C-alpha cells in the first residue's frame, strides 16, 4: 500500500467521510476514491455500487482484477431526551458499537448520576448540533415528546438524511407533530421517514424493553440501508 493512500484514508476516517481503497491485484497499485469522486467506465460503476452497498469485494473491470475496500464511518446515535428509556438505550447502543450522545436541556433529567459513562450534554439541541452536526451515518432518536425539544433535531435529521429518524409518542402526539413539520415546510414523503410509533412491534412495555425495540429498529435501518452516492451536479448531499 502506498503510504500516501494510507494517510489520506485515515484522514477521511477522522473526518467521518466514506472512501474506497482501490487495489489493482495484478500490480499492487492502489488509490483512494471518495464518495462523489468521478471514476470512468466499468471500474467507476463497480466503485459506485460498492459505496452504495457498503460492501467490500473483488471487481473485474477492463480485464483486470481489483479489490475495492469500502470504509464508512462508524454509526452514531444521538438521543434527544435524558429520560428513563434513554438510560437503558444509551448503554445498550454503546454495547452494539454505536458512538452515543444524549442531549437534553432539562438539567433535572440530564444529570451525570443518571447517565454514568455516557456522553451527556445538558443543552438545547439547536446549540449542540451547531458544533456537532448530524450526518448520514447518524441515527436520531427523539424521546422527550416535547415539541420545544424534539422538533428542531427531527427537522435537522430529516434534512441531513440521517440513516434513521425515530420519534416517541402516541399516534395522536405524532399526528400533531406531522402537522407542525408540514408547517415548517417539510414534504409528506420526508416526514414519512420518521419511525413512529418508534421501535419494532415486539410488544415492549418497560423502558428497557422499549430500548431493545428501538435499538433493533436502528440496526435494521443500518444494515439494510443504501449509502448515498453524491452526484457531481447534486452538490454536497452526503
Amino acid at each position, binding site marked *: *500500500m*502506498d*503510504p500516501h493512500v*494510507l*494517510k489520506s*484514508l*485515515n484522514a477521511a*476516517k*477522522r473526518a467521518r467521510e466514506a472512501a474506497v481503497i482501490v*487495489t489493482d*491485484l495484478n500490480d*499492487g497499485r492502489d488509490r483512494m476514491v471518495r464518495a462523489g469522486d468521478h471514476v470512468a467506465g466499468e471500474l467507476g460503476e463497480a466503485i459506485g455500487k460498492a459505496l452504495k452497498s457498503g*460492501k*467490500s*469485494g*473483488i471487481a473485474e473491470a477492463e480485464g483486470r482484477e481489483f*479489490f475495492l*475496500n*469500502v470504509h464508512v464511518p*462508524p454509526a452514531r446515535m444521538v438521543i434527544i431526551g435524558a429520560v428513563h428509556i434513554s438510560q437503558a438505550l444509551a448503554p445498550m447502543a*454503546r454495547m452494539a458499537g454505536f*458512538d*452515543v450522545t444524549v442531549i437534553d436541556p432539562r438539567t433535572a433529567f440530564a444529570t451525570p448520576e443518571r447517565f454514568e459513562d455516557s*456522553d451527556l450534554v445538558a443543552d438545547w439541541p439547536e446549540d449542540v448540533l451547531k458544533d456537532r452536526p448530524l450526518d448520514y451515518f447518524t441515527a436520531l432518536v427523539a424521546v422527550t415528546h416535547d415539541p420545544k425539544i424534539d422538533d428542531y433535531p427531527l427537522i435537522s435529521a430529516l434534512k441531513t438524511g440521517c440513516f434513521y429518524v425515530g420519534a416517541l409518542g402516541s399516534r395522536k402526539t405524532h399526528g400533531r407533530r406531522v402537522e407542525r413539520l408540514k408547517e415548517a415546510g417539510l414534504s409528506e414523503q420526508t416526514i414519512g421517514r420518521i419511525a413512529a410509533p418508534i421501535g419494532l412491534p415486539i410488544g415492549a412495555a418497560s423502558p428497557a424493553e422499549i430500548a431493545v425495540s428501538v435499538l433493533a429498529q436502528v440496526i435494521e435501518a443500518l444494515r439494510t440501508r443504501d449509502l448515498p452516492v453524491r452526484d457531481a451536479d447534486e452538490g454536497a448531499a452526503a
Partner: protein
Amino acid sequence: MSLSEQADIRDPLMIAEGWMNEGRDLAIATVVETWGSAPRPTGSHLVIDAEGNFEGSVSGGCVEGAVIAEAIEVIESGKPRMLEFGVADETAWRVGLSCGGKIRVYLERLG
C-alpha cells in the same frame, strides 16, 4: 477519551500509520474474498511489522501465525502475495480454518 478515539486506537490502519511514523517497516494483510463461514468479513486487516508484532485480524486466530511468517518475507522483498486458506487438516498439521470456510488474503508491504 471519547468512544471514537478508542475506535481509532483499535483500527489496524490507524496503528499502521503510527508505526510508519516511528520508521518501522510493515506489511498489511487484507481479506479480499471469503467462501462459506469465514470468521472475519471481506476488508478486514492485519498489520505486521518486521519483528512480527501485529494488530488486527484476518481470521479468528486460526491463520494469523502463517500470515505473520509470510509477512516478514514480504517486508524484505516488497513483492505482494495472495494467500489462500481452507479447511484445517488436523492429520497433516496444516494451517487452516476450523470453521470450514475458505479465505483469500492479500499481503503487501507498506511503501
